[in-house]
């Protein structure tokens, strides 16, 4: 039960002022500028955009600064801001095959058209802390090499020629693309809604679930068919213009996970796929998403649903960190009246328990006598 209680106004106002002070910290240290966050904490900005479900670097940077670096608080701020804006419409689906690629690797084919492009990756670093970053040593310009012109097909297109892999996920012709920001979620979900939920889901939660599938909780024998990161064009149809309007470009990470499948009565043995698509440079998230997507397709393939990662309602209902933090953190808000009621209840039960015990003791004594 919730009862309005007054009296906290001054304390709340002073707490906010104190928060502002602590956020700023030592005044002799220069204040962070948003462009510094955008440029130098870029992957943190990307995470806030992905899970805040809003592509806007400056806003994500502002949210990180305001939240003192608390990522889930920053994501919460971005989600709250989103709701204040009118919606102009849905873009045309982005074409990741036409991406301006900044990184692209495949674990399944060594020599694939377009090649393996490592890009700005942490892979192959030694994970040794670098004191030069602490001292602000100037950084050299990157190397350049003449780029080969040419099409860089998605790996799935290469395998598709042999018929050994399922096609891109199709939904019935008359299917209306679901949108969980507009309609309440009702289980079971179609794959489009599941992917939307996963794309904005908590990276840590999805990572742990993805890991659980590798450790045997719903095994899916995965290979990274391809991870690609880069910029794609975004266009939208509007009534006032006879062509799709170009809006600019966004950076996304795409993962095609290829999974073994032993076949079923309906489907011959072949490779199946999990898909990940996330705002920004966010390889871990895209990979975890693709593993979860595949695990959640268990029913579709007639596989036994035995592991948490295969349980759609469990995964989707708990993947949103704004919902999760809201419900967990609300426990610290005043529950004085609830607790008083519980206290009365426990006292009553305790009294009954003791009375019963006294009665039992007496019976035992009487029986003994």
């Amino acid at each position: 039960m919730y009862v309005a209680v007054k009296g906290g106004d001054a304390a709340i106002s002073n707490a906010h002022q104190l928060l502002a002070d602590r956020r700023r910290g030592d005044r002799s240290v220069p204040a962070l500028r948003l462009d510094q966050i955008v440029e130098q904490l870029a992957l943190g900005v990307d995470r806030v955009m992905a899970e805040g479900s809003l592509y806007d670097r400056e806003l994500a940077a502002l949210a990180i600064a305001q939240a003192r670096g608390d990522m889930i608080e920053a994501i919460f701020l971005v989600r709250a801001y989103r709701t204040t804006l009118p919606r102009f419409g849905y873009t045309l689906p982005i074409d990741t095959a036409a991406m301006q690629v900044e990184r692209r690797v495949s674990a399944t084919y060594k020599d694939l058209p377009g090649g393996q492009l490592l890009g700005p990756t942490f892979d192959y670093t030694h994970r040794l802390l670098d004191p030069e970053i602490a001292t602000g040593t100037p950084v050299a310009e990157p190397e350049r090499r003449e780029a080969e012109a040419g099409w860089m097909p998605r790996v799935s297109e290469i395998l598709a020629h042999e018929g050994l892999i399922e096609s891109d996920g199709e939904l019935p012709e008359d299917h209306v693309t679901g949108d969980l920001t507009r309609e309440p979620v009702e289980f079971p979900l179609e794959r489009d809604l599941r992917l939307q939920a996963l794309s904005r889901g908590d990276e840590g939660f999805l990572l742990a679930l993805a890991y659980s599938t590798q450790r045997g909780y719903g095994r899916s024998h995965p290979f990274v068919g391809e991870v690609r990161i880069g910029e794609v064009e975004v266009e939208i149809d509007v009534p006032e213009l006879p062509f799709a309007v170009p809006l600019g470009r966004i950076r996304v990470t795409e993962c095609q996970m290829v999974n073994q499948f032993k076949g079923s009565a309906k489907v011959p043995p072949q490779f199946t796929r999990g898909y990940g698509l996330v705002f920004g440079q966010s390889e871990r998230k895209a990979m975890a998403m693709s593993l979860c997507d595949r695990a959640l397709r268990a029913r579709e393939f007639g596989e036994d649903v035995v592991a948490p990662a295969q349980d759609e309602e469990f995964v989707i209902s708990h993947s949103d960190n704004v919902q999760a933090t809201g419900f967990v953190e609300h426990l610290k808000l005043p529950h004085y009246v609830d607790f008083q009621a519980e206290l009365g209840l426990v006292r009553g039960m305790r009294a009954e328990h003791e009375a019963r015990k006294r009665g039992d003791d007496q019976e035992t004594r009487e029986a003994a006598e």
Partner: protein
Amino acid sequence: MKTDRRQEREEAAGRKAAMAALSHAPGERLKALWVQAGLPRDAQKLRGPETGLVTVRGRIGGGGAPFNFGEATVTRATVRVEGGAVGHAYALGRDKEKALLSAIADALWQDASRRAEIEACIIEPLRAEQTTADETRRAETAATKVDFFTMVRGED
């Protein structure tokens, strides 16, 4: 009749390409080029500039059925310039002045007598800078390409 339709198509393609250059442009760069060219800033605002959201769609597996995967901020404007032409602008982000100038540019572009000026002073410089930036990025990425070679093992 046939040539009319082709002309119309070409004109639409040219207009779309100009709008693409404007939407990709950093706001500060567009504002600087605008001042440099001494182009007019006043126009009748018919809608906006206003900021809103678009829901971005991808495709399952890259090429399958569409799904929504997040929103992006977009700012748009519609204006009428002297002479009556109506211009539209849409661009990612929240830069209202950029949207306003882009809409004026789109309106002026539709005026055959101003098109060359807009192309030369605004669109071409923006496009050239974007091409250079893309080429640089591609070259930097290409330098991280793995050149596999196979070690020969054993005799012969």
